[in-house]
């Protein structure tokens, strides 16, 4: 019985142990960051492996406050994987940082919050998890301590997210008032599409739309991404976003299932708005992190298109896309981060003629960009294809056409990067950068993932098989 409990809970326990370890490590003798980083990389790998074992355990704990299942385990594993990859990529940045352990503490706490959110069976746990996922991140955004931009970004993030949680909480309080229950499983049975309920739904939905940065709740995203250290940006744009999308899918597909008609319409409108806005802003960006921020907004738009399908396919496609997105975006951030920490160069113009001296980095970045753009044979192509296929299942072809044509716009700005790397005659280009083991490993894993996860049909098939039928 007890082992059962622990095994069901194993991913959270692992994270808690890691956190304990970090606290104890901090208490001990002060050591340079270079000592901690390999240890953390190994430990996070261990964490991932533990998560992967016993994958088929499912059940509920604490009277249903906590629940888990194959899909949730998979989602957590995706997050674990992403964190591991980010940790390896952060090597370049953290090596010189005095507070490396604190960065890990913050990021892992936030991850733990996300796990709670994913497994929550009750609104309370959901809310606690959400805040646990957000507040440490705001602090982490500030971790380039002396940078003006970093602190501005952190301020914007904490203010915006506090405001967003206030609205979310207002929504939850109405939900409580209307249904009298905060159990996720009980709520759907008591919801009817009355104006108050719809308003409540919009409040809750917008709280999560804020986290995934759907338009018009996205405005914080670009500023925060730009100001934060690259590793934190990567975390924000990949891990945090993926977790929020998982939760959003659960909420929309189960808790707010009775409101499908409205929520579908909202999704259609918001997804198009998000894609178009993200594209329009991404077109003009010079700073590559800011550029990636807007491009990730556009990606979220496509994810919303997929969610609007309301089917098993849609569910599986969204999760599959996020897996692919982890690989692609982290590959991009890995390269960008490495160049940023080594040379301080962050604008697209700086990347001119990058290929001349940095062939591997250039190809990886190129593949990542292609995957983000959705070009075969990278997995991004499959991801986008499935998302749009899911979205089209409702038969709204105008919607899909607009989304598909927006892909063309997104091609323009993704190809700008490619153009800079390969075609523009930079005077000399960025000098040859050597890549240490850890970041290199991470980049190769990302590349492998981008190439393999699409071509191997089994991955999608597995995700599909464990997705709830709708």
């Amino acid at each position, binding site marked *: 019985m007890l082992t059962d409990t622990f095994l069901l809970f194993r991913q959270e326990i692992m994270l808690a142990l890691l956190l304990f370890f970090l606290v104890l490590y901090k208490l001990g003798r002060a050591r340079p960051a270079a000592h901690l980083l390999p240890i953390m990389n190994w430990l996070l790998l261990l964490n991932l492996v533990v998560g992967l074992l016993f994958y088929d355990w499912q059940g509920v704990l604490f009277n249903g406050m906590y629940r888990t299942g194959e899909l949730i385990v998979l989602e957590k594993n995706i997050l674990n994987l992403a964190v591991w990859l980010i940790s390896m990529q952060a090597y370049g940045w953290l090596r010189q940082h005095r507070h490396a352990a604190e960065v890990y503490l913050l990021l892992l706490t936030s991850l733990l919050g996300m796990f709670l959110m994913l497994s929550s069976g009750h*609104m*309370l746990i959901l*809310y*606690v998890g959400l*805040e646990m996922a957000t*507040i*440490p991140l*705001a*602090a982490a955004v*500030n971790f380039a*301590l*002396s*940078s*003006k*931009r970093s*602190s*501005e*970004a*952190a*301020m*914007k993030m*904490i*203010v915006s997210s*506090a*405001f967003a*949680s*206030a609205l979310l*909480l*207002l929504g*939850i*309080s*109405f939900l*409580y*008032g209307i249904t*009298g*229950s*905060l159990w996720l499983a009980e709520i759907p049975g008591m919801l009817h599409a009355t104006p108050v309920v719809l308003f409540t739904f919009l409040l809750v939905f917008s709280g999560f739309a804020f986290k995934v940065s759907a338009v018009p709740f996205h405005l914080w995203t*670009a*500023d925060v991404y*730009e*100001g934060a250290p690259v590793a934190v940006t990567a975390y924000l744009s990949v891990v945090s976003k993926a977790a929020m999308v998982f939760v959003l899918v659960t909420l929309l597909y189960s808790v707010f299932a009775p409101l499908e008609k409205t929520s579908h319409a909202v999704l259609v409108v918001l997804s198009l708005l998000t894609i178009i806005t993200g594209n329009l802003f991404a077109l*003009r960006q010079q700073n590559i992190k*800011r550029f990636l921020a807007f491009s990730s907004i556009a990606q979220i738009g496509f994810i919303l298109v997929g969610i609007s399908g309301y089917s098993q396919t849609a569910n599986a496609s969204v999760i599959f896309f996020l897996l692919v997105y982890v690989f692609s975006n982290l590959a991009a951030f890995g390269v960008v981060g490495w160049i940023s920490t080594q040379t301080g160069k962050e604008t697209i113009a700086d990347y001119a003629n990058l290929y001349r001296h940095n062939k591997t980095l250039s190809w990886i970045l190129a593949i990542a960009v292609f995957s983000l753009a959705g070009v075969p044979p990278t997995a991004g192509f499959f991801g986008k294809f499935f998302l749009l296929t899911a979205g089209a299942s409702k038969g709204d072809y105008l919607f899909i056409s607009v989304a598909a044509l927006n892909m063309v716009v997104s091609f323009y700005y993704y190809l700008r990067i490619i153009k800079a790397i390969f075609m523009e005659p930079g005077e000399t280009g960025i000098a040859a950068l050597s890549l240490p083991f850890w970041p290199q490993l991470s980049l190769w894993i990302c590349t492998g993932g981008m190439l393999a996860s699409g071509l191997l049909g089994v991955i999608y098939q597995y995700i599909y098989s464990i997705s709830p039928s709708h």
Partner: protein
Amino acid sequence: MNTVPLSHILFLSTALFFIGMYGLFTRRNMITMLMAIELMLNSVNINFVAFNKYLYPGKLDGLFFALFIITIAAAEAAVAIAIIINLYRTHRSIDVDDATDMKY
């Protein structure tokens, strides 16, 4: 006993929420903005407690939720103030309009 009807309390909480929101939108001082957010959170607390008391007196969900909100708000405030202090160090100001380097 002459009880106050639920609608009055909801009116109060809504008013509080929008006062908070107004404060957030208009004040330039970050600490004041933080306080405005606390107002909004407190209005939600009122909602929870009131719904619990008036509609579902047999349950405790709302009360607990309010307690958690208070706790988390404190944590949030702590982090926020830390960030504001750091912002002051880099910007020499806690006026929100001074921190608009990143835009467009």
